[in-house]
Each structure stands twice: as structure tokens, then as C-alpha cells.
């Protein structure tokens, strides 16, 4: 199945928006691990603009946003 991975904010420095093929039943956490972003870049994921539940499974056509948590002051 195909999903779209969209970097948001500072994550754009490390990856571009991409459409990828992923196996059915994969969790968003597994996809995050496969991206190999710098460990010091704390991120959260949004599935279709909502915070996913732990181990939430991704479906065909979903939009996975990877959002940096570096906040300004």
C-alpha cells in the first residue's frame, strides 16, 4: 500500500516529502524508525493530522506527517 510521508518544520532539513510503499499492517512507529532521523531531533508523528494511538496501524492512502518538536521562545 502507498502512504505519503510529509516532513514538517525543521524535519525538512533532513528529508523531503515522499510517497512510499509499505507493507500492510505496519505501525507508524516502525515507519518512523526506518527514516533514521538524527536522534537529537525529537519528533512526533501525525496520521491524517491527528496524534495516533500507540501501535496504530497505517492504512493505504494515509498521510504521515513527521513534526519537529524544537519550539521557539
Amino acid at each position, binding site marked *: 500500500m502507498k502512504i505519503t510521508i510529509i516532513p*514538517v*518544520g*525543521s*524535519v*525538512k*532539513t533532513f528529508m523531503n516529502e515522499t510517497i512510499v510503499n509499505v507493507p500492510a499492517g505496519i505501525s507508524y512507529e516502525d515507519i518512523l524508525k526506518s527514516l533514521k532521523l*538524527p536522534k*537529537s*531531533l*525529537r519528533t*512526533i508523528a*501525525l496520521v491524517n*493530522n*491527528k*496524534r495516533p494511538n500507540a501501535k496504530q496501524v497505517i492504512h493505504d492512502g494515509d498521510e504521515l*506527517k513527521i*513534526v*519537529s*518538536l*524544537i*519550539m*521557539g*521562545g
Partner: protein
Amino acid sequence: MYGNTGEILLVDLSSETLERKKVPEEYYHNYIGGAGLAARLFWDWGDFKAQPVDPGSLLIFMNGPFAGIRLSGCSRGSVAGRSPLTGHWGDSSCGGHFAPELRFAGFDGIVIRGQSHRPCAIVIEPENLRILPADEWWGLGVFETTSRIRAKFGKRAKSLAIGQAGENLVDYACIVNDNHHAFGRAGYGAVMGSKRLKAIIVKSFEQNYHAADPEGLDQLRRSIDLKIRESVTSQVLHENGTAANLEGGVHTGDVPIKNFRSSFWEEMAEALTGSTLSEKYLKNKAACAFCKIACKRVVEINEGPFAIPKGPGPEYETIAAFGSMLGSMDLAATCKAGRLCNDYGMDTITAGSTIAWAMEAFEKSALTLEDTNGLPLKWGDMKTVVDILLPQIAFRNGKLGGLLSLGSHKASLQINKGSGEYLTTSKGLEAPMHDPRGGGHGLALTYSISHRGACHTANPMLFMEMGACYYPEIGFEYELEPMSEENKAESALLAVQLGAIENSSCYCQFADREITIPEWVDLFNFSAGYNWTIENMMSAGLRVFYLQRLLNFRFGLTADDDSISMRLLEPAVDGAPEGVPVEFDSMKKRFYQLARLDEIKGIPDRATLDSLGMSVEASYVWN
């Protein structure tokens, strides 16, 4: 004494006297410096009955022990006193270049009381301390004042100045260093204005810093600076400023929209984010003293209704306060509004939030055309904000300018009509541009328990919730889920101690994220010779946190004041935090238990104060 000079400058503007005064050495060990030491000095010397703009009020500028070390982020300064905006104890910090220059001139701080009979300026040069008439600067904005100061004292002179907002006693007037850096929050520009003090100028001859262990400090400073320079956060901040991740914040629900009524606006995210500012308007990057991050922006806008000459650009807080908060995604307008606030000398967070409150009040008829002198207040109408509202507020012109110059809390009390429901405050201070519902539920707790009111820099809770720091030596070694109450009270107890340490040492919260707890202890010991253990350092942080609460208790605040506007707790209606409740009451209850705070008085019990060597202070609040 090492690091610190051990001396402050005591100024009485009524009698026009300046006096060097020694500060007891144990005060530095017990209260660190900066915000903590200022609280201690007010406890000793302050008049609790004096209103913030009375001649008898104290205005205290205080350095931390690190000011002057060639290390990124460590040379900020604090100002403190009774806040004109909130009426209780508060403080504000500022980067820039004033604090190290004051240290090099021989002083850890300046304590000012009294009221000059005419506009004046304090001039601090080694062996040449004086008060000058400043009639010719009165009525000028910050930029022109600073320009004249440089013309008179040379470009190396560092200054603090107020603009027209401070002179006119706008309750959230700020104090500006070298045009670009502000003691922004809580209204201390109005205290300067009430004392007819237009500026403070400092100029040293030598950059001497007397460390307890110069070699140890030099080695430590180099290794910390390298970590800071190489961190991902620093690189992101350097490239795109403090608004670098505004876009990300919109997606997590951290960025407030239209007076915190919405948590998601995708189109605005890209329009206002730091990379867009870089692409469209950035001319240079600038830095505070000795800082390698250089997150400050210098911008220029050549055309359009919000054209501005090359000069100081907006921080994240300013962009959000004059952008998303007002329903606008006009980045140029945020630059112009920020520039005006710098020149008038007004806090951008309270200014933007107060205007947002007024826009909602107008939309819901709590404010009418009669109240606004026929001026409609509409979301996103930045021409009105920039051309009419900000000047009216700074000069307290007309009914509307006068009302909004009070800040949203007092303005709401004045008009009533249910407008308290549109507030976004704690203890009378407008919340910064981080929405606890999306940014992290722990922020709701730490906003409410902050001594100055809703504040994200009183402690590092924001960074702890986003996973930007871990401190295993003091038990903070877990990841927090931002949108949950789990472990938030426990984390907040560490956060208030760390925040007191940061704000008393006057360290930048972006830069110091790379510093480990053992390195913090070494920094204090190598620079100021405090000879601390980790436990000593954390106790000092806790002591400062408690003293600030005792001050507020003596100003009449109790546990009930550790609250926050309902707007910041209601489940969000859209975006990532949609529908997620904030369990505020249970977090607060748990925090009170952990911090041993009395459920009625909101202050620590006597035994806790005794254990920190605060028995004398306890006798003032426990009979």
C-alpha cells in the same frame, strides 16, 4: 570573591545619590544571582506597600555569576520588582550586551529607588558614576534614544532605554537594550518611566572576569560551547531564528490561533514560519554577547504597507502574537508590529494578546463602536493594529488606547460584560505563544505556578515535554507525552528548580539545553567558586522558587491564584489536540503535595523552609 564582583550600585533618584554596596557572600550561595538574588534583595530592602509606579518601589537589575564568560548564552541579565501589569512579584530577563558590560564595569547589579524630579539617565563608567539630565531624550522612541546615546558615549557604550510606552506608564512597557533585546515581560519599562529614568548607560574599559578556577573554566567553556554550536537545535535556530519550527508547532497544536480559539491553520504555518522569514526579509543574523547560536534576526522590508528599514526582526513570540493570534498570516505585518513595539518599548506578547482579547470582545459585543471611538476591531486587520492601535496604546490615547494599555486582565475587569471568558492569562500575565493543550499539558501547570504569571521561561517545562533535555542525575530520564498529565507534576518539581537556576544564573534556555547537570555544577564552581554539589545547586533552585512564592504571599497571593484562564484548558476544537482534556486540577494537587505547598496559602510549610535555612523568612508567613 570570584565570578561575581560582590558589589551592586544603589541609586536613589530622589536624592540623586549613587552608592557602591557590598552584597553578603552567602546571598550568592543561597540565591545564585539574577532573579534569585533580586528576590532576596527585595525581601530585605523592598517596600511591600509601595505600588509598582510609586517612588518607593524598587527596580532591581541583577546579573548572574556567568555574565562576562566567553560562552554562548550565559550573559543574560534579570530585572525584577513589583510588576505594574500584575501587581505582584515578577521578573524579566534579557539577552544582548548590557549584563557583561555591567560586570566588566565592576557591578553585579543596580538597585534603583526614588523618583527623579526631571528626566534623567544613569551613567556607569569605572570611577565615574553619575546621574545626568535627559530632558532632550524624553518623548523619543527607543531607536532615536539609543542613537543619541551612541553619539554621546560612543558605540562601545551599552544601554538600556525606554520608549514612549514606558514614559506614559503603559502597564506592559518594556526596557530595551541596544534596540534589539528586551526585558520584555511584566512592565518594568513603566517602573523606569515612573522614576523618570529614560536610560542606563554602561561602559567599561577592560573585559576582566575573575574566575575561581580559570583553567578549569576555560576547558569547560570550550567543551560546552562546542556542544552548543554543533547541536541540531542550535543549527536550526541559527538558520531560521526562534520561529524556525513555527510550522511544526502549528501541526502539534502549540501555536495559538485567534486568541487560543483554534489549534490548526495549515496555510498560516508556512506563511509565518522562520524559513519564510529568512527567504523574504532576512538581511543578517545577530547574536547576544559571546553567543555562537546567533538566533536573532535583522530584517528589511522594501515595499508595501508594512515596509520597514533594516533593523531588528521579530522573534517567534512576536510573530505568533501579531500573526496567528490576531488571525493574520501577514509576515510583513508582524515585522512592522514588532519594530513598533521595540521603538515604543512595549512587550509584544501582552500587546498582541491584549489586542486579540479586544478583537474577540468586539466580535461578541463586549466592546462596542462606542468603546472604540468608531473603530471596528476585526481579525486579521493588521493595518488597524499597526497604524492605529499600537500608537494609541503607547501614548494612551483615547478611551480604547487607555483601556488596552492596561493589558487584557485589567481591561476585562474594567469593561466586564463576560469578557473574562476571553482572557488567556495566569496571575494577570498573558500566556506566551505556546498553547498547553497542544504544546504540553505540563505547561498549564507551570504557567499557573509561575511567580510572575503565565510564563514559558520561568522553567524548562516546555523543553522537557518536547524531549529536548534529559537529566538522569536528578531523576529526569524519561520521555514525556506532551498531551498527557502523566509524570507532569513530578517533572514540574524538577522544572521549577532548574528554572530558578537558569533565571538566577541568567542563562539562555536555548543554549543551556546542551549542559548536563554535572557541567552546571562545575560551571558554578569553576566560575564563582560556590563549591557546590548537585544537591547544593538544586537546593538553591528550590530556595529561590520558594522565596518568590513567599514574596507573592506577602503581596496577597494564595493557592487560588495558581490558576489559569479556562480558555487554555478547554478541549481544543481542532488540530492535533482536538477534544483532549487537560487534567489541570489533578496535576496541581499532585504538585502541591510534592512541593509541600500549603493548600490554602500556596507557600511551603515551615519545616520545609527550615530545612532550606529559611527560618527567618518562615517567621514572616507562619505565625
